């Protein structure tokens, strides 16, 4: 049963439920030298905007206990370069591409997603309403239900592609936001993006990041992420893609049990660039040995 890991997220069918998270795997092509990127369940590419973005002033990252802070600021090549230069190579490599879309207004998001609709080889759109590192858009759409729903509805009308909405842990009421994007037509939700954090160099008395603050990721946030996935799983019917500090099969299983139908591996790609494929292989062995599918684990945490 070679397709024991095949996973369905509403209209999106993946060869396995282990993806890589946006911002931690570039455009995927960088990794072709060292692995078969078509083995990954889905590659959520670096967030793409209509126009290229230079990103924030350095320093843009620093390490923190069991994690890291980043303030990249969605530096990206823009839609046109992504489509003309990256997509042909991603198609040739057989990669499952999740286009991570960033806009500064609902209409901006809609325009971008309308354009993605015409691009061959994109499996789904992940709508980024949760980036903590940009001045406009980003997290501002993700902190409450109304703007989150407006963006989701605009994207829903603009594309036939599966729509996955990436949620912020900084939402005032995450369950409310999740329900709002579900009602507005999202096919799935992915969570969590990073927490806004800060680290200060006590010698210079300056923040360790150029813009002062950044998004916290890595194993440090995993228990928070697992709890949030569990919370959201109680209130939505659409599938959940869980992420936050996953480094190995055991971590991924926690998310399945909490209610995620698929997972994304993020910061761990920096620790070990082949970790996603290793988790996929370990998951296949785990499921084969138990004669189960990942879907059999979803939400099966026993709360006593």
């Amino acid at each position, binding site marked *: 049963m070679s397709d024991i890991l095949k996973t369905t997220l509403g209209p999106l069918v993946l060869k396995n439920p282990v993806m890589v998270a946006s911002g931690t795997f570039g455009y995927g092509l960088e990794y072709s030298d060292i692995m078969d990127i078509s083995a990954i369940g889905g590659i959520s590419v670096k967030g793409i905007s209509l126009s290229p973005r230079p990103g924030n002033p350095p320093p843009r990252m620093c390490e923190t206990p069991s994690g890291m802070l980043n303030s990249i600021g969605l530096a990206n090549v823009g839609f046109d370069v992504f489509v003309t230069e990256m997509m042909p190579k991603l198609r040739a490599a057989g990669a499952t591409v999740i286009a991570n879309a960033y806009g500064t207004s609902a209409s901006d998001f809609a325009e971008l997603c309308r354009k993605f609709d015409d691009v061959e080889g994109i499996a789904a759109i992940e709508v980024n309403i949760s980036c903590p590192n940009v001045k406009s858009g980003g997290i501002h759409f993700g902190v409450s239900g109304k703007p989150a729903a407006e963006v989701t509805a605009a994207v829903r009308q603009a594309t036939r592609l599966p729509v996955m909405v990436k949620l912020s842990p900084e939402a005032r009421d995450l369950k409310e936001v999740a329900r709002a994007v579900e009602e507005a037509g999202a096919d799935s939700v992915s969570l969590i993006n990073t927490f806004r954090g800060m680290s200060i160099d006590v010698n210079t008395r300056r923040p360790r990041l150029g813009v002062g603050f950044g998004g916290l990721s890595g194993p440090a946030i995993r228990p928070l992420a697992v709890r949030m996935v569990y919370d959201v799983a109680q209130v939505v019917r659409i599938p959940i893609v869980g992420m936050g500090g996953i480094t190995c099969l055991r971590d991924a299983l926690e998310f399945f049990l909490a209610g995620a139908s698929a997972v994304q591996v993020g910061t761990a790609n*920096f620790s070990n660039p082949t970790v996603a494929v290793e988790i996929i292989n370990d998951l296949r062995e785990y499921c084969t040995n138990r004669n189960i599918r990942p879907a059999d684990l979803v939400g099966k945490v026993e709360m006593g």
Partner: protein
Amino acid sequence: MTTTDNSKKYLKTRIQRVETVAPGYSLLSFECTPPLTGIPGQFVMIRGAWGASPVLPRAFSIVQAGNIGQVLVRDVGPGTSLLCNMHSGDELAVLGPLGNGFVEPKSTKAVLVAGGVGVAPLVFLAEKLAERDVPVTFLYGARTENDLPLKERIENCANLIITTEDGSIGTKGRVTIPLKETLQDQNCVVYSCGPNLMLEAVGKICAAAGVECQVALESPMACGMGTCKGCAVVRPDGSFTYVCTDGPVFVAATIYGGEK
């Protein structure tokens, strides 16, 4: 800068030897199958099998490529401390070679200017140039006589001139003093690696002297291969360039301004 046709590899390997080459500095040797390719100035990302934290690998210039790879580690924090305290047989993950190396000189002489742990890529370069019989003047600046790792290897392949801030060995003062004298002969290329303030000073001296200067920059980075966009450096025109994929070797003037 130079690109090699050798693609990066991700090697799960083992430490062969850890040698303390100066107080707080360790030379890590690790087995490489297939052999580690790479030219002076290129780097590797290295992480031990130490569990979840520190999360990120660390970037190191290649000191030696081939069947036994080498990097120079200065113990400055939790990650480098773990690396310095590894032992023969310990697991190590090595990603590389990464980035672009130094472009070898068209002129007849090379002047290498190192500060502190920035000596690492320049030892590799000096040894390569010596194989080709290119005369190398190696200016090595440090705080004290205890901060001169790999000094003996340099003596074997180059004309070594040492400066220390406390005068405990060599000329007392900064490495830029002998640099100015050396550049009176303009028929050379300068290669430099060290603290940013030193590189900026070296770049400006070379620009004023009309001598080509290549610098290898250091930056925090997560991926080492262009995906995280964490290692941005601001160019004189305000635009960003990335140490991992655009560098780490840059023509000094493109970073610090000036003519050459």
